[in-house]
């Protein structure tokens, strides 16, 4: 491409400068805001005012931030799930479906087991069964990948649609186990009270949408971060991710590494679905199908560069854009939700595009005619 007699030239950097790690994401977010601002201005909304509203509704007001943390809770789990698989170059995009299965598995445990259990055990068992159900949902793609080399991208994606229809069938399509028997209105059967947590009030009288599971999700992120750094399992996956030939040379089993990583990834997404059960929903709730937290987990993982601790931050950032955007919709000067979605898309696009600048030195060179 030639602009004003200059050509853009890229050269790979030998070493990524430290400053680029900070500057590139910051510039990416600013660039995304500028692009979003253009859209806002074109649709007749004052950009700065709208951004301040978004900031307030998404992050800085009491209800804003508590809504955001509540939404971020399952998102951290799906983000961890995506990051865990992607680090091993396994591109599972089945977090959405595994999360639904986690909701179903968690609700099952909450209905069947929790009645006879004290909350201290009931809640963890719901999370555990959510994890198992999520892992079960990825078991077939994991086996196909490890044994036959089938692309996990396609198989996990297709199972998302199966999971979606499974939830719809349980609630709308049948009078089955998960359907509330006490009413003809199609909704999920409530889990036992012992399997539910109350929302946090953060030392106020107010009721929020943040549940203690938020801290469980953060703890999961910290534990994963630590475990993958110090354990032999973390070491072997890191070797495999860096160079499968080296892993083979060292006698590591690629089938075991691939399948176990995928199963853990499924379990993490499943926990996210179960957290929805012990938290806001208390049942199999088709409302989860509307939010797309599984796919958003992929975005979060990418923003976090697959770093488990950064996943927490990225999930909160992303959730805030969503809650803030929702709030703008019902403000005095309603901003269409589509604009908030444009903003999310722009953040991701610029963050990933920024990678180009991190890896390459970009310069403008005067174009000279070749002399012969």
């Amino acid at each position, binding site marked *: 491409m030639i602009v004003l007699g200059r050509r853009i030239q890229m050269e790979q950097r030998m070493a990524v400068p430290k400053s680029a790690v900070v500057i590139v994401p910051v510039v990416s977010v600013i660039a995304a805001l500028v692009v979003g601002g253009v859209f806002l201005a074109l649709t007749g909304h004052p950009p700065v005012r709208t951004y301040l509203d978004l900031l307030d509704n998404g992050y800085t007001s009491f209800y804003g931030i508590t809504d955001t943390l509540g939404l971020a809770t399952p998102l951290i789990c799906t983000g961890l799930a995506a990051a865990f698989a992607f680090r091993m170059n396994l591109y599972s995009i089945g977090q959405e479906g595994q999360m639904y299965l986690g909701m179903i598995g968690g609700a099952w445990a909450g209905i069947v087991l929790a009645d006879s259990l004290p909350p201290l055990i009931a809640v963890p068992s719901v999370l555990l069964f959510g994890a198992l159900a999520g892992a079960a949902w990825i078991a077939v793609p994991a086996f196909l990948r490890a044994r036959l080399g089938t692309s996990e991208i396609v198989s996990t994606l297709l199972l998302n649609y199966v999971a979606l229809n499974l939830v719809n069938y349980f609630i709308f399509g049948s009078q089955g186990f998960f359907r509330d028997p006490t009413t003809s209105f199609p909704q999920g059967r409530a889990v036992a009270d012992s399997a539910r947590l109350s929302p946090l009030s953060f030392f106020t009288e107010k009721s929020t949408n943040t549940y203690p599971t938020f801290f469980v999700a953060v703890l999961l992120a910290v534990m994963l971060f630590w475990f993958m750094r110090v354990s032999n399992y973390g070491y072997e996956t890191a070797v495999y991710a*860096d160079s499968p030939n080296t892993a*083979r040379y060292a006698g590591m089993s690629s089938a075991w590494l691939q399948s176990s990583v995928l199963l853990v990834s499924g379990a993490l997404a499943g926990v996210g679905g179960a957290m929805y059960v012990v938290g806001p929903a208390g049942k199999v709730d088709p409302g989860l199908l509307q939010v797309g937290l599984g796919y958003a987990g992929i975005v979060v993982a990418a923003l976090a560069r697959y770093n488990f601790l950064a996943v927490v931050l990225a999930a909160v950032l992303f959730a805030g854009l969503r809650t803030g955007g929702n709030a703008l919709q019902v403000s005095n000067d309603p901003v269409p939700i589509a604009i908030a979605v444009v903003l999310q898309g722009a953040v991701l696009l610029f963050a990933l595009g920024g990678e180009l600048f991190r890896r390459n030195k970009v310069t403008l060179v005067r174009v000279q005619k070749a*002399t012969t």
Partner: protein
Amino acid sequence: MVTSASTQHDAGAALALAARAVTKRFPGVVANDQVNFDLARGEVHTLLGENGAGKSTLASVLCGLYRPEAGQVVRDGKEIRLNSPRDGLAHGIAMVHQHFRLVDRFTVAENVVLGHKSLSFVLATAEIEAKVAAITEEFGLPLDPRAVVGELSAGERQRVEIVKALYQGAEILLLDEPTALLAPPEVEKLFSTVRAMTHVGKSVVFVSHKLGEVVDISDRITVMRGGRVTGSVRRGEADVRRLAELMVGREINIVPRRAKSQVGDVLLSASQVHLERDGAAMLTDINLEVRGGEIVGVAGVAGNGQRDLAEVIAGLRTPQQGNVTVCGTPTAGHGARGARRAGLAYVPEDRLGTGLAPSMSIRDNLLLTRERNFLVDRKSALHEAETFIKQLEIKTPGPLTPTRKLSGGNAQKVLLARELFAVSGARVLVVCSPTRGLDVGAVETVHALLDEARDAGKAILLVSEDLDEVMTLADRVMVLYRGRITLEQSGLDTNVDRVGRAMAGIAT
């Protein structure tokens, strides 16, 4: 500054290409520091130097792949600006890289026209093939234009690259380490092609670190070290020893190393090993024994089963028939970990992609072939890394540096140290092409390490495509040809000619 002899030399001759005070920097290193170089029409001019001396960088500047920070490239007396290899081609300059840039699934002719700008929408296949055939005929590059590149040997692929350059009208050809993958007879063939080219007025820049062979082919040799030109000699003035000193910057001595003490017990043996892959026999009836305190060399041209042999012994492949025994323990079918537990260490040919995890630190790479517990003991590995760095003079900012940032020689030191001085104390070592791509200084170090390990009583199987290396180190020599051992001799009375012919598959 050294005023190279070449600047005086070119006064009369027609100058095809020159570099004037070219400087090219990479982060942390000046790869070319005010380098002057010139090439007369019809000349073979060799750039000689160790790895990292800056010769490939200079060649890349000359062909347009890199843009220098300072200095000029002069073609036929006029300064030219090259922004890409395509610009280089427009000036008739082409480079054949060490790692070929061909599409395996395309035919020779298709590869040759790949990237050519003026292609018609429908390929005029017959016309292209005829033109390719004419070039192969003229320059002595036997090739079938219709052969699929994926099925060709390394030497044939190189010919495709050369034909491609000639097809695109190259008048100046830069060959980067062209003999690295070739057997002795193929090197001869390459040389006659080079002569055919200079005969019709084309010029060749030969980039190499192999002293011996460049003396035969070059009209001039320019030696580089540390990004600068250290000297330049003309045909007839070349003295191998003097060139080596210019390269390394000090005196060197290449002497054969042989076992100094009596050999011990058989520590490694393979009997009647037969390996098939995808229905094709890769190894047939392999029998070998290596005793403690000796180095057995396996010579052969690349692709004759060396890698399969090493991998069978290392437990990475299970042979269909036959036994492998390490220190008395049968290991075939017990995997890489089984072979290691029995006392085997393995240095694969591919250092950075197989022997080491390239993005991981030196410390973490030392853990690779250790027995590891549930939690990894990085502390002792760190200590070990520091010891190795000190003892073996590994040049690196520290033990946490990723191995891909090390030079080839230093990466090899890390790999060798890990395998030689394993905590478990392996007594059998399989090494594949341990000095491939290393500079003279590093080659010396690696050979000394292997020699020491032999003296320490280890049994070493040295699989190498570099015949000189095998002759320098091995107490016994075998030749692997098409998956069979076709020749076996003691190193002391080895007839190099016979080995060379066995490598080329000529019956003796």
